[in-house]
């Protein structure tokens, strides 16, 4: 069974701290890994990773994928209260009837205090 596990499940930090969120996966037929930020309802897209070792960066957020060890990390530097959200990791499968299917982890709840 395909599995995506995120850690930690929740994290409380103060503004200015740096956080690292983890996502490990065990899936058949990996295609890509995606990170989403979910503040109220709709997850909003952050990054898509397909190749190992290539860091994707957007402002204070960055992410990298290790396809050998089957994990990804999402880093947020100089955190702000607006970063408070649930961060979801999802793996996209390829091939057959699972084509395109996203399998999500349970999410990491990040709370940033002023």
């Amino acid at each position, binding site marked *: 069974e395909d599995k*995506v596990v995120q850690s930690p499940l929740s994290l409380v930090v103060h503004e200015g701290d740096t956080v690292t969120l983890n996502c490990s996966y065990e899936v058949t037929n990996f*295609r*890509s890994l*995606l990170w*989403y930020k979910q503040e109220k*309802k*709709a*997850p*909003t*897209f952050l990054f*898509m990773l*397909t190749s190992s070792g290539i860091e994707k960066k957007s402002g204070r957020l960055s992410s990298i994928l290790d396809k050998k060890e089957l994990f990804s990390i999402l880093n947020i530097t100089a955190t702000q209260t607006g970063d408070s959200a649930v961060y*979801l990791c*999802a793996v*996209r499968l390829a091939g057959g*009837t*699972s*084509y*395109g*299917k*996203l*399998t*999500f*982890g*349970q*999410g990491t709840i990040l709370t940033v205090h002023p």
Partner: protein
Amino acid sequence: EAGVAQSPRYKIIEKRQSVAFWCNPISGHATLYWYQQILGQGPKLLIQFQNNGVVDDSQLPKDRFSAERLKGVDSTLKIQPAKLEDSAVYLCASSSSALVKSGGPSDTQYFGPGTRLTVL
């Protein structure tokens, strides 16, 4: 570019009643997904459409859930009859293509605001 639209935003029903949700994907997106997100969990795929055909409905409880995308654009998801455990947020997402051979922007799924269903 307009995003994925969903309605209603909230719905409260009693168990055994029926409910329907509507989704309009981003214009030109061939692939449409319905997810169920129970509180405290990540979204779980219920059904995936490619144009108006079903690609994957392996996790759809077909005894009570049904979905259609008749003209390959809008989609509806119906629950009949609802159970207490159906209380969740129902998210619709779309992507431009499921046929790309290597990961690219068209693989990205964009989500709508969701419908929060409460079954009493």
